[in-house]
């Protein structure tokens, strides 16, 4: 019996690892889901068949209810996926917290077979704190994302906020330490309940100061917390399976939040303890537009997912002598089934036909080159416009701003594309010396750097993405 338990734990662990490993590649990812389901089933069955489990009806009932709620929850529209994930974390946190409470009271009531070592008691405390803070925190996050009325969507900040938050947490931890040191004390039970309450409050406080843009990062961190609470539960229940699965979850949440922070140019420490508020105000204050930066990884991902891409080369491509890299990108994208066109503006570059000379050198077929007048009607259906060292020729100011030298010049309507990726080295203007609002457009993401270097990176991303 014990052997079956151990082996099934190993098996389930291995299956979970493979589940994540297969997520490497869209081709194998669905195998991953199956591995996960099988692993979970193995774990559940192995636990269930243990002789001490006797109230099967209760279990069946709870599981059935889980299906009843879970299935509809998996049918939410894709736009609601973030909320669903947050809600799910809440459930996860709740489960961990409740089990922790149950274990504590079981032990208190003396009906537990488990010896309550200080280590285990610490784990129990951690489990409860992490579980409950994840619960309310995730609920709040879900609420904000779903734009539930009575939850403020805007970040709510007040002076001393961080002090309050950390204070609440510290009190909870302090109580936990007290309980660990005096597990038998009469007040231990009350203290434990207080810990749970404080954790619930802390979860709310944690999310209150956070704005919508940071939500995905927060959800990812909550994911890590949920995982850690499972680890703690594993320590309590003496289950290596829980520890591994929790650790996998924890590390995945961690990595994802780090990646997201990086993509948003935020420091990870800044996010770790709810001090999100700080960077926010600037964005809220005025309607002043901001340059948003995208990482090369992110850009590669966007390009991969696009159905059609329009590349708009300009003088910067020429200066960087990036034409051969452009060809590599063209090859990589067309190989993936993405339709790629080049939109050539009549005055792109610094001489008539400048772009033609370079693109022909790189052997881009003439049939891929499209004139401005032909491409413009297609721009609104374009998934991604890749502006490559072009500036004036995609400057919407030409349409209406009589004060600028380029007023009246027909431009390529890059701004009408669903997403714009723009490569240039700096925030400097182009030939005409004027600002370009395209770069701060809602759907525009900058890739700062020399065009040749940026394209090299992009192409390498494709190359490496394909292998592993």
């Amino acid at each position, binding site marked *: 019996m014990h052997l079956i338990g151990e082996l099934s734990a190993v098996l389930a662990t291995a299956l979970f690892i493979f589940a994540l490993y297969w997520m490497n590649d869209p081709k194998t990812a669905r195998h991953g889901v199956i591995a996960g389901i099988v692993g979970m089933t193995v774990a559940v069955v192995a636990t269930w068949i243990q002789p001490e*489990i006797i109230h099967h009806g209760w279990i069946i009932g709870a599981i059935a209810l889980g299906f009843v709620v879970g299935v509809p929850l998996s049918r939410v529209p894709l736009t609601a996926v973030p909320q669903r994930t947050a809600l799910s974390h809440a459930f996860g946190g709740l489960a961990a917290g409740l089990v922790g409470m149950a274990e504590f009271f079981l032990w208190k009531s003396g009906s537990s077979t488990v010896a309550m070592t200080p280590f285990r008691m610490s784990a129990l405390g951690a489990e409860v704190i992490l579980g409950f803070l994840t619960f309310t925190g995730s609920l709040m996050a879900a609420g904000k994302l779903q734009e539930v009325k009575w939850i403020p969507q805007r970040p709510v900040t007040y002076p001393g906020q961080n002090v309050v938050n950390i204070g609440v947490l510290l009190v909870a931890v302090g109580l936990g330490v007290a309980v660990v040191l005096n597990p038998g004390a009469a007040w231990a039970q009350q203290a434990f309940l207080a810990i749970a309450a404080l954790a619930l409050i802390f979860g709310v406080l944690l999310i209150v100061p956070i704005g919508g843009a940071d939500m995905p990062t927060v959800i990812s961190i909550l994911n890590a917390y949920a*995982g850690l609470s499972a680890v703690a539960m594993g320590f309590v229940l003496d289950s290596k399976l*829980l520890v591994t699965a929790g650790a996998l979850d924890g590390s995945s949440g961690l990595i994802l939040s780090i990646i997201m922070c990086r993509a948003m140019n935020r420091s990870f420490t800044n996010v770790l303890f709810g001090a999100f508020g700080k960077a926010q105000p600037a964005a809220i204050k005025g309607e002043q537009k901001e340059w948003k930066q995208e990482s090369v990884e992110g850009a590669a991902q966007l390009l991969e997912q696009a159905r059609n891409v329009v590349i708009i080369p300009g003088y910067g491509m020429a200066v960087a002598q990036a034409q051969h890299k452009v060809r590599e990108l063209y090859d990589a994208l067309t190989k993936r089934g993405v339709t790629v066109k080049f939109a050539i503006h009549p005055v792109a570059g610094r001489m008539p036909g400048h772009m033609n000379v370079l693109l022909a050198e790189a052997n881009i077929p003439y049939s891929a080159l499209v004139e401005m007048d032909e491409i413009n009607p297609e721009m609104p259906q374009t998934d991604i416009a890749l502006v490559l060292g072009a500036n004036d020729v995609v400057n919407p100011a030409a349409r209406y701003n009589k004060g600028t030298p380029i007023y009246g010049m027909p431009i390529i309507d890059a701004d009408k594309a669903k997403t714009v990726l723009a490569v240039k080295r700096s925030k400097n203007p182009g030939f005409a010396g004027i600002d370009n609002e395209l770069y701060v457009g809602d759907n525009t993401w900058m890739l700062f750097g020399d065009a040749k270097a940026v394209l090299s990176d992009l192409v390498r991303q494709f190359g490496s993405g394909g292998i592993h």
Partner: protein
Amino acid sequence: MTDFGSMLFVFVLATFIGLGVIRRVSRLLYTPLMSLTNAISAIAVVGSIVVTGADHPLTIRILGAVALFASMTNIVSGFMITDRMLKMFKKQ
């Protein structure tokens, strides 16, 4: 009964694996990845089953049943939505 050292070992090793495996997940798949790990983290179900199903006082078992329900919801919706999202990647 496993000793503390082993648990620590297992935790450290599993974390390494998690970091290693996740780092290599395709950028395309971060969203489904999140829901998949979310489903997997519902492994807490194991604890809930024990609490619910063993011969414990009623209150405890109620706590357990709620936890079990919550975990199960996670498992079901997590795996299903992951699969739903992945189905959309037919292109490659």
